[in-house]
């Protein structure tokens, strides 16, 4: 019995053990199948996920291209500055560190609050900006006090510097940190995701943003689970932006802004043969350098609240009634229509009655009998009322359009306005009113609905001065691409001892702040002269009344004329100089077959108008006579304009018009002067607009005269490409 139960028990346990082994085999098989599924079937997927886990690709900032003036003077450059950051994990007590830091470099309450906020938000190993824009000396001081400043590190940074400060702020522009709306506008630009990237605002910095910005580099790093960089796996260097050489002359630009004095307004200097903009000034100006760093509220409010509107680039964004300057256009239209001849005289009695309205001449009592030249010289309103009545507004508008009114000039600056050429159809659409004779008369003296920018006026005058050849005002002379040199693959090696010291402390873990290699490491390889403005597609964006069609026709015209140098030689005599920089226009217009065309105007018409402008300045009694000069035999011709910003009532006319200097500033007339020089062989055009400057001859003409004299002094040699006698880099 006992043996039997023993035997039975042993049999059962052996059977059951075998069954259990079988079960374990099944379990092992399930595990192997699971591993097969994870590692073999899904292996690639998980490998990718692991790879995504461990690597992070960060963009690195490219160095922005420099901007030079025509003589090589730096208008915008990059300066190395230093940034103090706090590595919280490297200090036992960051409050103490910050207190010690404040003893060396002061921090205000606002900054401290920001730092505290960042400390709360960021992980312990992420660097926190303590103070930026530190000089080398300040950074060295921090290094010297390193034992007291546990956790503080200095890092290199690039800041944009504008050596001219306020002198070229509007035209060169500035860069500043991004706002949310920038991100919205450019969702696909990887640069904009970079912390610390500064985008071009206004001026050339904005318009040539895509050229200046360069291409961001990529740094693929291995990161651990907490996001800390362990090592760099691969790196693609950032490509530097191209350098731009502008047509501006820094000295002339400075002089022009200074000449504007305390006035609000703008001044433009153009090369009438090439369309190069030598100076583009808007006054008052602002220091472009304050915008590269977070702008203090006080400074910002000061700029915003200023009634002279310093932030506006009045040369391209300010629109004015061109006033008497427009009489040049009406004169050309009259001559072209055949109604006006050189000898024909028109009588000015001081006013003209149309319907039951009186249209007054600016001179009570009138000018008497006047030829066209005399009418321009005295800026007689009645003369041009008569011309306008005879030829009609359509003819005036057609000529104005040919000279560039009502369309963007092609300067490519964003924010440029196209002005307004009021046609009959326009008025119908806008006001649902029919065109009246009064509108034509207002148009004839550059008043009414007509609006133009100073740059447009400058372009028109330049085209009259050069004999009727269309030009495109432009700012960029050359583009120079940067090519990285070999040394660049070790961005930290070439740096100073001081920096390698800093690097030691950082321990290479500068993950949050991309390394910006210094521009010195890059070589300027090709200085090839690239096509100027026409090569870049015009960046006309949301600008309101853009008359694109007419703008395009100008590009065509320009090219056509240039291709026909023989006809130019016979008619204007500018052939040897004309095509200097414009010969490269074929980039955009090569697809249209060239056809031969003459200048936009007949030489004798141009000559008459120019003669009238000459008399304005150089003949006794001319409205600009006081501003005449004779600089080594070179004289200036011009046209004054004063445009009302308020209506003069009948009552006021009877009691006597209130004197300008008795009016509050913002009710005074705008003063303008458009000039060219030298009279004998025009090369430069200057337009000065002084907002609320009372009278063109009184305020605008003297400024224009000084600017023109300086221009002639700087460029005594006016043949060929404009070059300064002695380059002052």
């Amino acid at each position, binding site marked *: 019995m006992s043996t039997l139960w023993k035997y039975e028990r042993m049999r059962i346990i052996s059977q*059951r*053990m075998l069954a259990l082994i079988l079960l374990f085999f099944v379990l092992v098989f399930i*595990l*192997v199948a699971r591993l097969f599924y994870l590692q073999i079937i899904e292996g690639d997927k*998980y490998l990718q996920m692991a790879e995504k886990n*461990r690597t992070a690709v960060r963009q690195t900032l490219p160095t922005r291209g420099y901007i030079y003036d025509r003589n090589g003077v730096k208008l915008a450059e990059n300066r190395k500055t230093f940034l103090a950051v706090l590595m919280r994990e490297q200090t036992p007590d960051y409050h103490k560190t910050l207190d010690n830091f404040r003893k060396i470099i002061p921090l205000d309450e606002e900054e401290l609050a920001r730092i505290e906020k960042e400390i709360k938000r960021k992980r312990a190993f992420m660097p926190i900006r303590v103070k930026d824009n530190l000089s080398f000396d300040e950074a060295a001081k921090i290094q010297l006090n390193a034992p007291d400043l546990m956790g503080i590190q200095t890092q290199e940074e690039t800041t944009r510097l504008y050596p001219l400060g306020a002198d070229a702020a509007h035209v060169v522009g500035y860069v500043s940190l991004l706002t949310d709306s920038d991100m919205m506008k450019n969702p696909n630009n990887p640069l904009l995701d970079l912390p610390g990237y500064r985008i071009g605002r206004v001026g050339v910095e904005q318009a040539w943003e895509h050229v200046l910005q360069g291409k961001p580099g990529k740094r693929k790093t*291995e990161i651990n689970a907490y996001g800390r960089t362990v090592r760099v796996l691969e790196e693609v260097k950032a490509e530097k932006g191209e350098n731009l050489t502008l047509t501006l002359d820094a000295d002339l630009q400075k002089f022009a802004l200074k000449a504007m004095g305390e006035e609000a307004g703008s001044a433009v200097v153009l090369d009438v043969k090439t369309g190069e903009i030598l100076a583009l000034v808007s006054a008052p100006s602002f220091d472009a350098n304050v915008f590269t760093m977070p702008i203090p509220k006080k400074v910002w409010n000061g700029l915003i609240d200023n009634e002279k509107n310093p932030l506006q680039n009045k040369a391209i964004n300010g629109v004015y009634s061109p006033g008497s300057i427009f009489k040049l256009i009406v004169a050309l239209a009259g001559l072209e229509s055949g109604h006006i001849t050189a000898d024909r005289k028109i009588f000015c009695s001081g006013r003209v009655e149309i319907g039951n309205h009186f249209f007054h001449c600016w001179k009570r009592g009138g000018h008497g009998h006047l030829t066209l030249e005399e009418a321009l010289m005295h800026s007689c309103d009645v003369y041009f009322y008569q011309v306008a009545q005879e030829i009609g507004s359509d003819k005036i508008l057609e000529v104005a359009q040919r000279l560039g009114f009502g369309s963007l000039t092609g300067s490519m600056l964003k924010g440029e306005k196209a002005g307004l050429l009021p046609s009959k159809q326009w008025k119908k659409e806008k006001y649902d009113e029919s065109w009246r004779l009064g509108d034509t008369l207002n148009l004839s003296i550059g008043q009414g609905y007509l609006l133009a920018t100073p740059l447009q006026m400058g372009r028109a005058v330049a085209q009259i001065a050069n004999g009727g050849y269309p030009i495109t005002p432009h700012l960029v002379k050359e583009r120079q691409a940067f090519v990285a040199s070999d040394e660049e693959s070790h961005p930290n090696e070439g740096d100073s001892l001081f920096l390698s010291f800093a690097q030691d402390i950082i321990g290479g873990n500068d993950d949050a702040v991309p390394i910006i290699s210094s521009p010195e490491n890059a070589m300027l390889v090709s200085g090839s002269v690239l096509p100027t403005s026409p090569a870049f597609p015009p960046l006309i964006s949301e600008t309101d009344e853009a008359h694109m069609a007419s703008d395009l026709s100008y590009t065509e015209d320009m090219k056509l004329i240039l291709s026909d140098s023989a006809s130019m030689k016979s008619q204007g005599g500018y052939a040897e100089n004309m095509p200097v920089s414009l010969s490269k226009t074929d980039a955009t217009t090569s697809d249209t077959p060239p056809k031969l065309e003459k200048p936009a105007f007949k030489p004798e018409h141009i000559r008459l108008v120019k003669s009238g402008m000459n008399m304005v300045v150089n003949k006794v009694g001319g409205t600009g006579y006081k501003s005449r000069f004779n600089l080594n035999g070179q004289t200036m011709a011009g046209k004054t304009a004063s445009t009302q910003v308020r209506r003069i009532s009948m009552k006021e006319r009877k009691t006597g018009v209130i004197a300008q200097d008795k009016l509050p500033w913002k009710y005074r007339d705008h003063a303008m002067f458009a000039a060219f020089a030298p009279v004998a062989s025009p090369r430069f055009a200057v337009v000065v607009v002084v907002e609320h400057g009372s009278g063109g001859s009184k305020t605008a003409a003297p400024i224009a005269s000084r600017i023109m004299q300086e221009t002639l002094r700087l460029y005594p040699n006016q043949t060929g490409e404009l070059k300064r006698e002695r380059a002052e880099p």
Partner: protein
Amino acid sequence: MSFFKERNCYLKNYNLSLWDKLCHFNYKFLFLICLVVFIGIGVLYSAANGNWDLWASKQFLRFLLSLSVLIVVSMTNLKWWMRYAYWIYFVGIVLLVVVSLFGHVGMGAQRWISLGFMNIQPSEVMKVALVMALARYFHSSSLSDIRSIQYMIPPVLMMLVPVALILKQPDLGTALMLVFVTGAIFFVVGVQIWKFFLILIAVSGCMPVIWMFLHDYQKQRVLTLLNPENDPMGAGYHIIQSKITIGSGGLLGKGFMESTQGRLNFLPERHTDFIFTVLSEEFGFLGSISVLGLYLIIILYGFYIGFRSNNFFGKVLAVGLTVNFALYVFINVGMVSGLLPVVGVPLPLVSYGGTVMLTLFFAFGLIEVVDINKDMVIGRRGSIDDG
């Protein structure tokens, strides 16, 4: 039946000398165990980014300590263990009670008693003690005893008391292991199979009630297992990263010391419960199934020792301890590969940790005792000569 044949000649006077014991010692079994330990030390070295001092060296010292325990235990007399089986079990229960009253709280659970120089984890002691007590109980039972319900009440209670105490800590993994080991012992001693099905049906019927008694974090683990992508940075993080780590190893793995998931800390606890993932990542599918194969061989060896033992106590003891070891492997690998919820069971012999290694080596020492004394015949009451 060959295994039943009484082979030894000195049955009546069964007393082995130390030399005899050393001669009968199963060196092959020990070799397999040490092989797995050495693989484990290599993986720990790699998981610490090639740092010997972080885990590997300590693990090696524990191995040496555990090895000496194994050898000392293997030299003892099987009869002695049988005699004190219930006492050991009782001490285990006392320790569990003590730990629930005065134990150290770690990771949200009361598991340790600190003795100053070392920490005792009574639940680990219980894993061996319960098997020993059950083996002792069934040694003297006949088949008809086993098939009666009343006779099965004491062993069920023997299991339930420690399980209840351990669940209170709370340590679901260990409690479940005790339940499974007890189930396996019931199975091998001959409890009818229909009873297991009955229990299974009853338990699944009680599932909703059990669910209510689970702690929130335990519920969370089960829910996370069902859908880890629900909360990839929270509760699902372990499972997702664990699967990524294993999966990214592919067929041949990334190579020794080339683990990225482990080295870069994507996997917390990579040196303890999740060490298998590092192994899978570095040595791939072939490496992981090789290690699984080694485990399977050890398990089979344990069963084989049970087979060839000629006394019932030894058989049950060997099988029970082997099943315990096997459960570690299955639960851990199932857990890290996303088949089971994360219950905190280490990979035996490989995971960093002293108590588990020591307990396992103690258990292996007992299996060696069973093997050395395979020809001993122990009577129903525990005396050698009781035939």
